[in-house]
């Protein structure tokens, strides 16, 4: 599964909300549709995008077909952003240290205690 498909699927707020709901546990299409002012077919369409991106799967439980979240592509997307974030974080931690040194240097040199 490509990051492209993952990010594309995540680009929609309804789909992100659906994923957030599924992070709490599996749910049926009807349960997923309930909090949204949307028809069931509209929700089903979003679910298809999520399913095609590998972000969710539909199980079999008698008549129910509960949706459940698949962590792997989300982790890949998260990892991608995380790598980029780490690149900056490495720079900024060095900047933290530099700023600390500069602040020390700026302090008026009146700390010399009289003996």
């Amino acid at each position, binding site marked *: 599964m490509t990051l*492209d498909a993952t*990010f594309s699927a995540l680009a929609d707020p309804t789909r*992100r909300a659906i994923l957030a709901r599924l992070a709490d546990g599996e749910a049926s299409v009807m349960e997923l549709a309930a909090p949204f002012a949307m028809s069931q077919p509209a929700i089903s369409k979003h679910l298809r995008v999520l399913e095609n991106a590998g972000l969710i799967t539909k199980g079999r439980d008698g008549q129910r077909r509960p949706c459940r979240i698949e962590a792997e592509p989300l982790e890949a997307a998260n990892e991608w952003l995380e790598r980029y*974030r780490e690149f*900056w974080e490495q720079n900024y931690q060095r*900047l933290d240290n530099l*700023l600390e040194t500069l602040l020390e240097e700026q302090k008026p040199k009146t700390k010399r205690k009289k003996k």
Partner: protein
Amino acid sequence: MPAPAQVTLPSDREVRVTRQFNAPRQLVYDAHTKPELVQKWMLGPAGWDMPVCEMDVRPDGKYRWQWKSQQDGKQFGFFGTFTEVDGPAHLAHDEYYDPGDIGGSMPTGDPCVVSLDLKEQNGVTTLVCNMRFASKETRDGAVATGMTDGMEIGYARLDDMFKAKAA
């Protein structure tokens, strides 16, 4: 220690990094505009030095940054022009990639517009660095791999999802 940097994708052409620093704004600004300070921190991953750091920080002033691998001596860089200089609150420059002898997937044509905004409150400076690419394609090339349509994926939001899932 300050909270770690946040990365968001505010639109399909942009990447935004937000970070706080326990220092006055002027100092954070200096660290971004004085070459001898920039060279001390803007080094990327371990194993790179920044032998070239020339910056003429004024509107239409040029800059050139170059990094060199400690391992094999290969170099790459960025260069461009400062477009907006309003220290210590705001700085903007355009940025061209110089593939040097490492190549890489970064586009070399249209520049990326980088803006830096600094706000100070109670001695803490919040930095927002926004990178706007010429197109979605160039952003995708620059940042590594393909993504699509306008979105705002706080990496933190995904992280929360995992926490919720793990709980």
